[in-house]
C-alpha cells in the first residue's frame, strides 16, 4: 500500500471551526464510501472537513489509520457539579430525557412553554457531566440560564456575549455570539444545548452547530416550524425529534386555563385623519405605478425609494401608519381601564416597540424590561414584580420567548407583529399555573387598520380557540 509511508505522521486538529487532517497527500482520500465529508485543501496541503462531523468520522479514522494518527483535538472537560438541586422530573419530562438518551444523546425535545424544558436540559447536564455550551436567542435568556445554572448546580457559568468573552467548561451564549465565536471555542464542548432551537437553522446562525465538534446535542423548543422550511435541517444540525408533546396536553394541566379578550380601539380624529391620508397617498401612488407597470409591488416601491421622492414619501407614509397603530393614544386610555379592572392582579403589558413601552412606563410610572435593560435592574424589576412590589410590568418584545416571568394573571398585547409563534409564546407567559384563577389575555387593536388583520392571523393558532370580543 503506497499510502502507508505517509501515514506515519498523520494528525487531526481543530482549525477555526473545521477539522484538519495532515499527513495524507491529495491522492490519498480519507473519505469512506458513502460519506465524502473530507475535502482536499490545497491552500494548506491537508484534508479538511466541518467540525460537526467529528463524532461520526472519529472512529472510522482511528480504525483506518491508527496507530499512525495522532488526535490533537482537546477532550471536552469532565464536570463535577458542586451540587445538584433538581426537582423530581414530571412524567413527560422524564419521558423526554429517556428518549433523548436512547438516541445517543442527540436530538430535539418539543414541549410547550411553561412545561419545564429547562429542567429536561438540566437533567441531561447532570447525567452527561461534560463541558456544555448553552445557546439562547437573546441576552435576557442567556442571563436567565446563567442564573438558573447557578441555582441548580452551584456553578458560576462562563458568558460569551453582551461584551463578555469568558469561556468555561459550562458556558452560556447567544445565537449571534455563537456564530461569531464558535470557530474559537468549537472544540471545547461535549454537549450543546440549543434553547429555542428554531433560531438555529438560519443561513448564518446554523454555523454555530456546524463549527462545533460536540457529539451530544439537545434542541429545545415549543414551536419548531419555520415558515422557510429550514427546520428540516435541525435533523442533522442537532439530531432527530426525540420527543414531541402536543400543546393540547399542556392546556388545563400544567398551564392555567385562559380567556382571550379582544378590545378594538378607535384612532382619535387627528390620528385617523393622518392615517387615512397616508393610506390614500400609498394607494394613489401604487395605482399610478400599476398603470405603467402591472404587478408593481411593495418591494419595487422600496427599491425605487432611493431615486424617486414620491416612492420615498409612500414608504414613509407606510411607516407612519404603523407607528400610529402602535402608539394610538386611545390604547393608553384602554390600558388605564384594564389596570382599573384588574387592580391588584399582576399584569404584563407587551408593547410593539421600545418607544411605546417607554411611553406606557412614563404615563403610568411602571417598570419596563427592554432589550438593553442591565442585569441588575432586570433582576430588581423581576423580583419586585414577583414579590408584588410592582403590579405591572411593561416589555417590548424581549419577553416574547422563554424568559421566565414571575406568574402573571393578566397580559395585554398593545402592539407587535402577528405570527403564530409569538402568540403561543406570549400565552405561555401569562398561563403559568397558580391556584384556580383563570388568566386573561387582552389584545388591544386599532379598528379600521391593518392591526385587525394581524390579530385575526394570530388567532388562527390553536392557542386562541376561544376568543371573546369586548368593548370597554
Amino acid at each position: 500500500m503506497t499510502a502507508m509511508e505517509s501515514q506515519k505522521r498523520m494528525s487531526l486538529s481543530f482549525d477555526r471551526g473545521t477539522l484538519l487532517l495532515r499527513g495524507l497527500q491529495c491522492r490519498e482520500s480519507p473519505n469512506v464510501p458513502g460519506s465524502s465529508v473530507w475535502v482536499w485543501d490545497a491552500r494548506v496541503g491537508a484534508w479538511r472537513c466541518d467540525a460537526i462531523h467529528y463524532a461520526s468520522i472519529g472512529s472510522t479514522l482511528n480504525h483506518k489509520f491508527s496507530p499512525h494518527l495522532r488526535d490533537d483535538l482537546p477532550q471536552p472537560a469532565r464536570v463535577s457539579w458542586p451540587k445538584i438541586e433538581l426537582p423530581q422530573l414530571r412524567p413527560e419530562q422524564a419521558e423526554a430525557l429517556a428518549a433523548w438518551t436512547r438516541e445517543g444523546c442527540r436530538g430535539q425535545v418539543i414541549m410547550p412553554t411553561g412545561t419545564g424544558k429547562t429542567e429536561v436540559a438540566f437533567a441531561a447536564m447532570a447525567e452527561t457531566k461534560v463541558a456544555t455550551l448553552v445557546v439562547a436567542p437573546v441576552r435576557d435568556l442567556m442571563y436567565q440560564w446563567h442564573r438558573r445554572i447557578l441555582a441548580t448546580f452551584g456553578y458560576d457559568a462562563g458568558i460569551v456575549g453582551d461584551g463578555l468573552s469568558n469561556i468555561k467548561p459550562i458556558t452560556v451564549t447567544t445565537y449571534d455570539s455563537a456564530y461569531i465565536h464558535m470557530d474559537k471555542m468549537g472544540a471545547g464542548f461535549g454537549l450543546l444545548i440549543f434553547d429555542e432551537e428554531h433560531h438555529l437553522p438560519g443561513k448564518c446562525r446554523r454555523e454555530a452547530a456546524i463549527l462545533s465538534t460536540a457529539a451530544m446535542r439537545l434542541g429545545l423548543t415549543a414551536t419548531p416550524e419555520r415558515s422557510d422550511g429550514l427546520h428540516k435541517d435541525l435533523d442533522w444540525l442537532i439530531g432527530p425529534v426525540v420527543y414531541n408533546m402536543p400543546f393540547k396536553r399542556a392546556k388545563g394541566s400544567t398551564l392555567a386555563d385562559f380567556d382571550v379578550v379582544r378590545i378594538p380601539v378607535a384612532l382619535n380624529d387627528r390620528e385617523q385623519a393622518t392615517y387615512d391620508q397616508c393610506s390614500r397617498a400609498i394607494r394613489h401612488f401604487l395605482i399610478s405605478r400599476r398603470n405603467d407597470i402591472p404587478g408593481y409591488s411593495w418591494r419595487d416601491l422600496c427599491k425605487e425609494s432611493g431615486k424617486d421622492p414620491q416612492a420615498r414619501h409612500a414608504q414613509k407614509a407606510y411607516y407612519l401608519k404603523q407607528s400610529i397603530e402602535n402608539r394610538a393614544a386611545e390604547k393608553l386610555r384602554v390600558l388605564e381601564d384594564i389596570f382599573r379592572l384588574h387592580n391588584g392582579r399582576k399584569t404584563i403589558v407587551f408593547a410593539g416597540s421600545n418607544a411605546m413601552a417607554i411611553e406606557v412606563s412614563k404615563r403610568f410610572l411602571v417598570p419596563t424590561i427592554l432589550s438593553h435593560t442591565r442585569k441588575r435592574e432586570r433582576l430588581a424589576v423581576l423580583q419586585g414584580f414577583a414579590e408584588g412590589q410592582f403590579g405591572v410590568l411593561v416589555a417590548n418584545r424581549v419577553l416574547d420567548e422563554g424568559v421566565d416571568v414571575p406568574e402573571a394573571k393578566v397580559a395585554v398585547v398593545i402592539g407587535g407583529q402577528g405570527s403564530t409563534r409569538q402568540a403561543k409564546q406570549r400565552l405561555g407567559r401569562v398561563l403559568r399555573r397558580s391556584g384556580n384563577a383563570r388568566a386573561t389575555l387582552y389584545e388591544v387593536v386599532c379598528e379600521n387598520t391593518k392591526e385587525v388583520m394581524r390579530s385575526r392571523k394570530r388567532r388562527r393558532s390553536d392557542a386562541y380557540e376561544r376568543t371573546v370580543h369586548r368593548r370597554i
Partner: protein
Amino acid sequence: MLTSEQSIVEYKAGRAVPDRLRQKTHRHYLDYAEKILSVYRNGIGRQRRRLHQQIEAVFADEPDCPVRRIQAFCKLLDDGSAFQADPSGEAGKLRLEVFSQAARFHPLVEQPDRLFEHEEKGVKSQLADKLAAPWDQIEQALYADVMAYQKLERFAGCPDPAALLSRYNVAQLQACLYKAESMTVTATDDLKTIVRYAKLARLLHEIVRLGPSKYRIVFSGPASVLRGTRRYGVNFAKFLPALLACKGWKMTALVKTPWNQPAKLVLCDKDGFTSHLPPPDEFDSALEESFAKKFGPERNGWQLIREGEILYDHQKTFSPDFTFRHKTGTQVFLEIVGFWTPEYLAYKRQTLQQFAHHKILIALPEKSIREGATPGENILTYKTALKIKPLMETLERTRTENTTT
C-alpha cells in the same frame, strides 16, 4: 463600519455596485456633508434621536437619497462621536426609585373617582417635590440611558465634507464585502503589504505567479473550501483599507445577491477610493534605501526590484527585500537583516531553508557573525552599508552556475 442594514448595493448584469457619491453626479452632496457635520458639531448635549431627525431633515427634499444612505451617514457620524453612556447606571437607579414610590398609587388615572383616587398629574408633581426637581426634568432623565435618548458629549468629526463623503464611499464598499464569499487580488506592487495585511485580517491565501512580479492571490477562510460561506465577509471588509492604500492591483470579490445569485464586486487601485491608512513605506530602513540608491535601477544587465516577488509554500510566505532580475532571466533575491537577535536569525535561517530551492542572498551585519566562523557563500556581510562590488561578483557567479547547470 456600517451594518448590513445600511448597505446599498445595486446588482446589474452580474455585477455588484455599492453606492458611491461621485464628484460628477453628487457635487451637491458636499453641501449636505457640510450641513450634517455642523449638526453634530453644534449638537453637543442633544439626544441621538434628535440628531438623527435633524440629519433626516437635511435630506428631506433631496430626490436622490435612499433612506439607507441617511442611516449610513448617521452611523458614520455616531462612530466619530461619544455619547453620554451613563456607566454608573444613574437612570436605572432613578427608575427604580420613581417606580417604587409610584407603585402604591397604581393605577394613575386621568379622572379620579371614589375607587381610584390617584390622579396622574397630582402624583407626578408630588413625586417631583419629593425628588426636588421639576417633573419634566425627571421624566427626561428617566430613560436617558436608552441609546436613542443618549446625549452627544463629543464629536471628533471629520476634517472636511469631502473626507466624510470618501469615508462614506469606502464604508459602502466594506458593507458590500460583508456578503462576500471570496476575494481575488491580482497585484504587481506592494505584494508584501497585501499579503501581510490579509494575514492580519485572518484570511488564508492561495497564490499563483502569473509572470515576473505579477501574482494572483485568492483570499478566503478555512471553511470556504467546504461550502460557500459569508463568515469571512467582515475579514474582507477589515482588509480592504490596507488594499486601498496599495498600488498596482485589481480585485474581484464574489458576493451573493439577496436572491442568492452570484455577483462580482470589481475594483482596482485607479478607482480613486481613499483609504484612511497611509500608503506603505517604500523602504523598511535607511540601509535599504541607501543601497537601492547606490545600486540604481539597473546595473550590468541586472534590474533591481524592491519586494518584487513573493515566495510561497502553502500558508508560509516570504517576500525578500530585493529581487535582481537579469535580462537572461536569472532571478536572485536579497534579504537584508538589519535588526538582529539570535532568535530572529534562527527564524530567518528556517525561512531560508524552507525556500532553499530559490537563489537567496542574505546580508548580515558583521557583528552577528561569530568570530572565526566562515559565512556561507550566499552570505554577504556589511558594517554600515552594503558594498556593491562583492554583491556583483556573487550575482555573476550565481548566473554562470545557473547557465552551466
